[in-house]
């Protein structure tokens, strides 16, 4: 084993431990608000982390990632409402649908460079949003898809029960994070970072840049779709806002607040943004002013995401202590 901390088994252990902690949380602090917060947080953290696969690891700034969040929510909710399929089947079909749409849109988008990629993804997302609003008989138009989502039991899980939904959301979040982490540390993940840093060099080395970027786009879309499905279960429906550009914007803010160079940065950013949102709406009349000032403090004060700053400080601390130790050793060895 070259590096045991980077093995999937280690990730799985951490994931299992984290799940145990999250499962105990509502027993220690029984509060409906906490459970709701965690379900929403799972959906959005998965969304933000999937977006960071593109933004942070791929250098592909997508302004349209929200379309897959919306697509996951709508396709899952519609399949449950109209077909009576069991939940796992609807879940799988919705994922395949997200992947297929991402493949189609990705083929067109990933050829473009930086800013133009961002614009085209934004345009596609707004097109998807317009279609959702237009297609009233299927989607309910701008009123959203209402009438609730039927939740037949499966494997002893009853998603109509809030604590079952909570545990399922946490499990999906952790499984999603472990999988994305595995992707990031795989040879594919390293290739993706090489393309981010220097696409021309990667291309000269024989890497099919287009293919790698397309695969990343599809993978990110699938995980965003899972986030959307959790959200649709949480609100018992789907709304056009799920596919609006504001949700893509929020995803980017979560990444920036938490840190785009740390794997868990987007998750931390999600918590920061949700807590800020909740505090600003509950305790002040001036929601925008409060949130805006805090965002400015982050952007102009820290200049990096919170987790990036903390990890940077920790690394500096480590190198300083190591170099002082080495310096001591050398001086001791010299005659």
């Amino acid at each position, binding site marked *: 084993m070259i590096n045991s901390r980077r093995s999937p088994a280690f990730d799985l252990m951490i994931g299992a431990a984290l799940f145990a902690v999250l499962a105990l949380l509502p027993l220690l602090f029984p509060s409906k608000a906490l459970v709701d917060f965690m379900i929403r947080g799972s959906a959005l953290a998965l969304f933000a982390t999937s977006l960071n696969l593109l933004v942070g690891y791929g250098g592909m700034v997508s302004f349209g990632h929200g379309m897959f969040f919306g697509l996951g929510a709508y396709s899952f909710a519609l399949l449950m409402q109209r077909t009576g399929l069991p939940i796992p089947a609807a879940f799988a079909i919705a994922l395949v649908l997200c992947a297929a749409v991402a493949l189609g849109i990705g083929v067109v988008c990933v050829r473009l460079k930086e800013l133009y990629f961002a614009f085209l993804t934004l345009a596609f997302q707004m097109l998807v949003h317009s*279609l959702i609003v237009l297609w009233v008989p299927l989607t309910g138009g701008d009123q959203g898809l209402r009438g609730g989502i039927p939740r037949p039991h499966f494997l002893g899980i009853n998603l109509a029960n809030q604590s079952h939904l909570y545990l399922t959301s946490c499990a999906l979040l952790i499984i999603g994070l472990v999988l994305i982490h595995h992707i990031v540390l795989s040879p594919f993940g390293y290739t993706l970072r090489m393309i981010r840093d220097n696409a021309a060099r990667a291309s000269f080395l024989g890497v099919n840049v287009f293919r790698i970027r397309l695969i990343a786009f599809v993978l990110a879309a699938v995980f965003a779709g899972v986030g959307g499905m959790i959200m649709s279960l949480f609100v018992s429906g789907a709304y056009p806002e799920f596919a609006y550009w504001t949700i893509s914007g929020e995803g980017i803010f979560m990444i920036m607040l938490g840190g785009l160079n740390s794997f868990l940065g987007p998750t931390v950013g999600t918590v920061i943004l949700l807590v800020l949102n909740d505090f600003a709406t509950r305790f002040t009349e001036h929601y925008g002013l409060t949130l805006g000032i805090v965002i400015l403090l982050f952007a102009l004060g820290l200049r990096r995401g919170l987790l990036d700053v903390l990890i940077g400080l920790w690394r500096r601390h480590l190198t300083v202590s190591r170099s002082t130790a080495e310096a001591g050793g050398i001086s001791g060895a010299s005659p």
Partner: protein
Amino acid sequence: MDIAALVSCLSSPACIVTQATGGLIVGMLLFLVAAGLTLIFGVLKVVNFTHGSFYMLGAYFALTIFNFTGNYTLTVFGAGVATALVGLVFERVFISRVYGQNVLMQLLVCYGFILIFDDVVKILWGPEFKSMGMPPAFQVPPIFIAGGVVPPFYLFLVGVTILIGLTLWLVIDKTRLGKTVRAAAHNPNMVAALGINTGVLYGLVFATGGLLAGFAGALAAPVRSLTPGMGFSILIESFIVTVIGGMGSIVGAFVAAITIGLIRSFGSLGFPLFTEGLMYVFMVVVLIAKPTGLFGREVG
């Protein structure tokens, strides 16, 4: 979809005139906002996402100045200058700190300010819809062109915008200042090495963007209702205009703004629920065919 309505409109000159003028004023307002956006991007390589808020501030400044003075000419100039000052301060104090940084960090700063400006407007002017009303000089019977009704203010708005656009083009294309600005867009380090204060230049460009957005807000105030969220919706449309026209191209912004205005006004007849969708279809088609936009050149 209501293709029949669109066809019947296209067969009547009166309806064409009415729809076209409606589309034109939307296009003109979009052009003023997008011109500032594209100018700022062209020179500073920053996408100023607060530009919609500048437009909103311009409209609210106009409301206040008009209520105090009752003079619409003064209102337009006052709102333009006040918004230009906001732009100048915003650039010098905040945006100048994030030059050369990650684009997403710039986006974050802009987003913070969108929230702040919206809330400040809510505090100062109230959260409810406001309307300024038509200035007395334009409270005259409408003009009829080929049987279509055209309010005189619409003609004024189109004329003034074309005048502003021409002035902007002349300044940038024909004056020494314009040449310096274009040089700074091309190679800021060289311009600085020649002894030109690029900081002042950048502030000036941002102020010009603010001026244009302020004019747009003041010209929109008599025909639009004012709300604290009004900047958000024009932001995305003017952004689309900028992208379609080509980032950095003012001519492109003009062509794209008028096209989008006409698509909106005729599209609302034929595809009432998909008017916005048409815009995005147009954007997708342009970007696939020519990623740099109609008049844009490759950047970065």
